[in-house]
């Protein structure tokens, strides 16, 4: 029987090294051969594959010619605009397939898992550098003849298998190849290893693919939604409800953030702390009113609600110990480990407190006195500053966290609180004084708070960046582009772990804001 070029089915798999692409490759070969097709498959194995983007390529021809007859000549690599079926084992790899022009609107069935395996550069930025999955979705809908997209990684995990099995299922369910599902299943069975789990993943994915439709990409796992509802002793609940009621005095645009802030503060400290937050916020809101915030959807109050709450809930040892000794946390770990009742769970905490953190736990007066004696600080550092592995599932370890968490009641008398309060006041004062003259600059100043995060050195670095941005904002005050430049400084600081680019940007600001005087 004679064949046309179009009879050759060209299938490419774009995967991330380590996803089991080789297994999928050999399944597809076996599937096609057992259905009497002629097949050629190639791959690029080797070091280049380790966790990097990798590609498998298969060409198939229905009704394989007799071995004695002339054989089809297949290509060894996919060509641009010449692929019929493209399997992408990760969402950005689907994007890469399109960039490489392996997906064409007139013929390519694009079968892509909508989950994300983040690339290193997405993870290392100090802020949020996660790629825009929607851009890939838009392109995929436009560039493919047909799009089959859902979270195949999740399906595989649920079945205790790997994504190659659910991709195989999606291929079956897509109907892109004219083979019955039973033929696919037979192929998996013949391959021998992990058959049951593979079949389960295969079937779930096949059914999902047959249903059609596209699941929106799941960029990255989203944690459970933030806590909102209170439960507890009646006397506390009554006071809580009174505080919650005060939120309704705020403009609608602010309420969500203010409520989240209030929850965070009460959870962090107590109801009084929450009440003080609302007082402070109300004061800032009054200033916002005077500055014409009503026309700006109360942006200043919004940002204040958010960043003041974060600032007041500074990350100290008490906070960490409190969080680590709570019951819901234990449950979360059990879920994450898929622990069954017959299993035991041992939890080891990796903590490394420094002298500064230790001293900040002291009453303000004592702490300040110690800070003035470098020899004493060094002595404490030698005692305290070392990595500790604490078994928080054992009584001793747990008690340590539990008791440190119990220092919560003292928090407002401790050195750290004094330091943080003064810092917050300085920051708010800068925002307040900017507000009357330059609304946007005031908002930018509030946002600069985002730079302070982390513990120990990271925290110190964050503070340094914050100070630099604030000094820039100070230089810029009074200029028309002050807010724009301050926001730019914040963005630069967020993108750059070392702070070198921030220094450069600040240098630029200095050169024009001071006419080269500074």
């Amino acid at each position: 029987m004679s064949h046309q070029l179009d009879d050759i089915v060209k299938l490419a798999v774009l995967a991330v090294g380590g996803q089991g692409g080789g297994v999928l490759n050999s399944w597809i070969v076996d599937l096609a051969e057992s259905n009497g097709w002629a097949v050629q498959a190639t791959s690029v194995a080797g070091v280049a594959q380790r966790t990097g983007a990798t590609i498998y390529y298969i060409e198939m021809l229905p009704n394989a010619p007799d071995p004695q007859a002339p054989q089809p000549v297949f290509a060894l690599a996919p060509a641009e605009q010449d692929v019929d079926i493209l399997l992408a084992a990760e969402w950005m790899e689907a994007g890469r397939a399109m960039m490489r022009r392996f997906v064409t609107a007139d013929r390519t069935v694009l079968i892509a898992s909508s989950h994300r395996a983040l690339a290193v550069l997405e993870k290392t930025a100090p802020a949020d550098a996660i790629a825009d999955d929607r851009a890939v979705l838009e392109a995929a809908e436009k560039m493919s003849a047909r799009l089959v997209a859902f979270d195949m990684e999740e399906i595989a995990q649920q079945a205790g298998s790997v994504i190659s099995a659910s991709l195989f299922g999606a291929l079956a369910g897509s109907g892109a190849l004219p083979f019955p599902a039973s033929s696919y299943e037979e192929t998996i069975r013949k391959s021998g290893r992990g058959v049951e789990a593979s079949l389960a993943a295969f079937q779930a994915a096949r059914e999902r693919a047959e249903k059609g439709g596209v699941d929106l990409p799941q960029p990255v796992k989203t944690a459970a939604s933030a806590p909102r509802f209170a439960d507890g002793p009646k006397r506390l609940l009554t006071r809580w409800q009174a505080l919650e009621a005060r939120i309704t005095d705020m403009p609608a645009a602010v309420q969500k953030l203010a409520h989240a802030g209030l929850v965070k503060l009460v959870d962090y400290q107590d109801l009084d702390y929450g009440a003080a937050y609302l007082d402070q916020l109300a004061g800032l809101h009054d200033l916002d009113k005077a500055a014409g915030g009503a026309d700006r959807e109360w942006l200043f109050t919004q940002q204040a609600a958010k960043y003041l709450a974060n600032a007041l809930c500074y990350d100290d040892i008490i906070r960490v110990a409190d969080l680590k000794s709570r019951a819901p946390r234990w449950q979360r770990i059990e879920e994450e480990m898929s622990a069954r009742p017959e299993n035991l769970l041992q939890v080891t905490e990796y903590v490394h407190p420094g002298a500064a953190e230790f001293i900040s736990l002291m009453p303000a007066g004592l702490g300040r006195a110690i800070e003035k004696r470098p020899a004493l600080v060094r002595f404490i550092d030698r005692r305290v500053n070392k990595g500790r592995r604490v078994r928080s599932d054992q009584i001793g370890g747990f008690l340590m966290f539990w008791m440190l968490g119990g220092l919560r009641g003292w928090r407002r008398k401790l050195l750290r609180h004094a330091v943080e309060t003064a810092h917050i006041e300085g920051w708010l004062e800068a925002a307040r004084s900017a507000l009357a003259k330059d609304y946007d600059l005031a908002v930018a100043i509030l946002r600069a708070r985002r730079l302070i995060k982390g513990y120990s050195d990271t925290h110190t670095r964050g503070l340094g960046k914050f100070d630099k941005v604030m000094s820039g904002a100070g230089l810029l005050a009074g200029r028309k582009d002050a807010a724009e430049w301050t926001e730019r400084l914040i963005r630069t600081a967020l993108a750059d772990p070392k702070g070198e680019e921030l220094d450069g940007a600040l240098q630029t600001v200095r050169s024009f804001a001071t006419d080269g005087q500074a």
Partner: protein
Amino acid sequence: MAERSFKKEVEQLRIGDGQVFRGEGILAITKALLENGVGYVGGYQGAPISHLMDVLADAEDILSELGVRFEASASEATAAASLAASVHYPIRGAVTFKSTVGTNVASDALANLASGGVTGGALVIIGEDYGEGSSIMQERVHAFAMKSQIWLLDPRPNLPSITAAVRHGFELSEASNTPVMMEVRIRCCHVHGSFEAKDNQRPPLTVAEALSNPKRDTGRIVLPPASYVHEKEKYSKRLPAALDYIRKNKLNEFFGPREAAVGIVVQGGMYNGLIRALQRVGLADIYGNSQLPIYVLNVTYPLVEDELLGFCEGKQSILMVEEGQPDFLEQNLRAILHKDNSTLPVSGKDVFPMAGEYTGQVMLEGVQKWLAKAAPHMLPDANRAPNQPAADTDMPDLSKTVPPRPPGFCTGCPERPIFAAMKLVEEELGPHQISGDIGCHLFSIMPPFEIGGTTMGYGLGPASNSAFHGGGEKRPISILGDGGFWHNGLNSSITNAVFNKSDGVTIIVDNYYSAATGGQDVLSSRADNKSKSTKHPIAAAVEGVGVNWVRQIDRTYDVGDMRDTLREALTTEEEGPKVIIASSECMLNRQRRERPQKAAMVKEGRRVERPKFGVDEDVCTGDHACMRLSGCPSLTLKKLDDPLRDDPVAYIDQSCVGCGNCGEVADAAVLCPSFYQADLVHNPGWFEARMAGLRRAVIGWLQRRRAAGRLQFQPAEGSGA
């Protein structure tokens, strides 16, 4: 111990006459070696022929049944030198390594082998690693063939062609007393196909038998005056004999019509790509029946001049399809035509790119460009338009969206903490001059580590720092893998450093075997290997050649220890080279071995601890400092559904193997207290379970006591505490 086992596949090597062999290219090559009575095989692993070494290792039983000796050579030089067995004895030998790094290392032996010539067929199977997915893609093996006058086969990439090339390779070698190289490209090595098998042949003379009857022939030894004779013999006797064999056995193939205005000359390995381009412009059918004459060079060196001239006769244009640079074949063709006083126009690198892979698109565009010039009437109308159709110009621009994904360390890789420690030391002592070697550790060049300046060759990491060996405020740091150490590093790098009183620091990354190339054993492997001698510690070798400052680290995941040791090496008063041996097993292979074992133990009801790391999402502040010291695939991010938080927080997914790097780094770098290790204990003992129950009861009581005095917040109304 290899990463991929071919135990099942190698059974196919036993099939006989008339049966159909199905499988990968490399397995087919092995089968062809056996069918052609090979007497000994050897080689050195490296993409794309790593699996060929794995197949040979897994086929050792079959090999020894046939009296075939298999050596996992110490280096490509060793492999090439082993072909010396075919100099005086009529024994067929084959070795394999990757081009061109392997060929570079093997050059000394290859030059001498080619000089004296061979009696038994000597075949070098070269994995040409050019193009996508290649780790060492520069240079062409063609140059080596020409300089040593070794014939170069480049068969069409299908199983019948490459297995036939093995047979012809041996016969050509014997007919011309010259070693022969057979070049197979990466996709050809892994191409899946079939061919009709023959019976395996026992070598007529085995190496064992030869050893009992030693032979020598002074005329074949590379020493003046014999070597002067060799040089003449190459040209006057061996080349004509080779050309005769190639012509007589029709090693090069003609396809398409004999008579036509234009024709194409193509390297065998490029044939499928060319046919696809012709198929796409409508000038070939799917079986490769071409409307244009094609001359396929299954032998790319030497060219058969009269065949070529015959092909060119009467044509108005010739296209040379030759991948890579320099364009040896095109130059050769032009020289042949020039000598023949022909003015026939030759196309090649004018329509194809000088460098880089001939991908489907490149091939299509090259053929179209040439045809548009040379034979426009043959192009279909759609193709005659000067520009590419604008079908895909409305493709959305994803170049700023899709992040690059270069290869990197695997989840749980024991090399990650070494480079994390190095970053920490650099934070204290400032940046250093660092040279890398060849191996997985080179991934440290990529983000997030971005460490290392040069890579000069296998085992040459410390050697490439030798100019910096003494004096100066800082010490140079070099990295060497265990594979590289045994390959060439002990001699070229370590003894050199000892002899020259180097002051530098060398880190030898020991992952228990040659991990990067797929887990082949080396001398220091910890595993038992029934046919190889393992368990020779690197430390003993290093001390043996005179290094006094040696530190052995048996758990690289201890980032603090790693950092302190490195700091000590960089600051100690001790003179002479400082060597740190950082040992932990390759996690990829370890997991492949241990995961099924542990699953079986759990099933059997035995106590098993399964570690995994986690991050407290409300403790993590989203700074990602931990990511910048890790790059672990399992340490990733998740977004929080919290209007107060801007940045995604760290999260450890299910692929975590519990190596501990993230926790250790958080500790050593004093990052944050978010990391915890959770060990899930399967089948705990009775007492242990009882004690854990008691502890939970006490802890639960304390938790409830505190909870009673404060408000509890939940994500949804009424959801459990």
